[in-house]
């Protein structure tokens, strides 16, 4: 824990944190975009009247599943939070009000890490039901008929889980900066003692 605090307080630590935030922003934004544009339309033959087949068109959209809607919304929120934090770090300068800035960044990071993990998990379990079906509840799987929809959804999920891991690391770094407030990213609010 002390080594982490030391790494977070050095000058290089600030650049690493910025890099991590940029990566997390890109990961969550790409997850939101890929899932938001996820849509597949297919025509199936549902029966036969004499010799002519009857065709019906089915669409698979992300709005059909509430878990995926939550996924898109949460990813947009987390990427916006990361963008805000990046802007704060680059343009915020040295303004600080008795340690309030460090505390608010830490708390916001913690809230966002729980949000993104909830969204990624809900979408993952719904995708698992869609991929494997559930024979106890007699729910058929849909991935054999809408393969592209499932593939895009899987890609968005992977990006979101990468975002979860990155947000967890960022949150750990921000919390450790509460232990030893450093002088590079925020002004020295005269940390009189290191607890």
């Amino acid at each position: 824990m002390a080594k982490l605090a030391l790494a977070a307080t050095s000058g290089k630590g600030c650049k690493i944190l910025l890099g991590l935030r940029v990566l997390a922003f890109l990961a969550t934004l790409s997850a939101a975009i890929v899932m938001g544009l996820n849509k597949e339309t297919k025509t199936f033959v549902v029966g036969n009247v004499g010799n002519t087949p009857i065709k019906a068109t089915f669409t698979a959209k992300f709005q059909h599943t509430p878990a995926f809607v939550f996924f898109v919304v949460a990813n947009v929120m987390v990427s916006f939070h990361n963008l805000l934090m990046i802007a704060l770090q680059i343009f915020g300068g040295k303004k600080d009000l008795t340690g309030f800035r460090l505390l608010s960044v830490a708390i916001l990071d913690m809230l966002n890490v729980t949000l993104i993990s909830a969204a990624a998990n809900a979408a993952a379990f719904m995708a698992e039901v869609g991929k494997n079906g559930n024979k106890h509840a007699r729910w058929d799987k849909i991935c054999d008929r809408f393969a592209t929809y499932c593939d895009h959804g899987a890609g968005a999920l992977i990006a979101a889980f990468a975002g979860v891991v990155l947000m967890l690391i960022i949150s750990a770094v921000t919390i450790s900066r509460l232990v030893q407030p450093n002088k590079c990213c925020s002004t020295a609010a005269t940390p009189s003692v290191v607890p």
Partner: protein
Amino acid sequence: MVKLTKRIGGLVLRIAAFGAALAALIVMVTSRERASFFAISFEAKYTDMAAFKYFVIANAVVSVYSFIVLFLPKESLLWKFVVVLDLVMTMLLTSSLSAALAVAQVGKKGNANAGWLPICGQVPKFCDQITGALIAGFVALVLYVFLLLYSLHSVLDPFLLQKS
């Protein structure tokens, strides 16, 4: 005196969170109902859905962790580690609750676009118990968020109030 009330407040919060997580765990594990649908008789258990299994495991981990931390002595240096672990447990709780809610919502309302029928009509008591377990899980989550903020405040001294 203030320190004592703060410490008792923390303990009360943790006992409440432990109780809520344990209640969620027990209610979901004991949910089981047998129903017959036309000529087929089937049994609805929590192990049918992967999300419910994950919910049970996550709440079990959180209960064991809360129970252990209850006995941590005040002067131990591990309290800084407890802050990080509190964050991890909050993440576990929220992700398991969110996954179970997503699956339970499909079980209750079905998904007309995918052709999935709701199952709550056939096994109403099972559905009620699952709802109860999810509510207890939500209470545990809220208590854990408060616990996280409390640990952050009491252990890390975020306002940098202490003077040497």
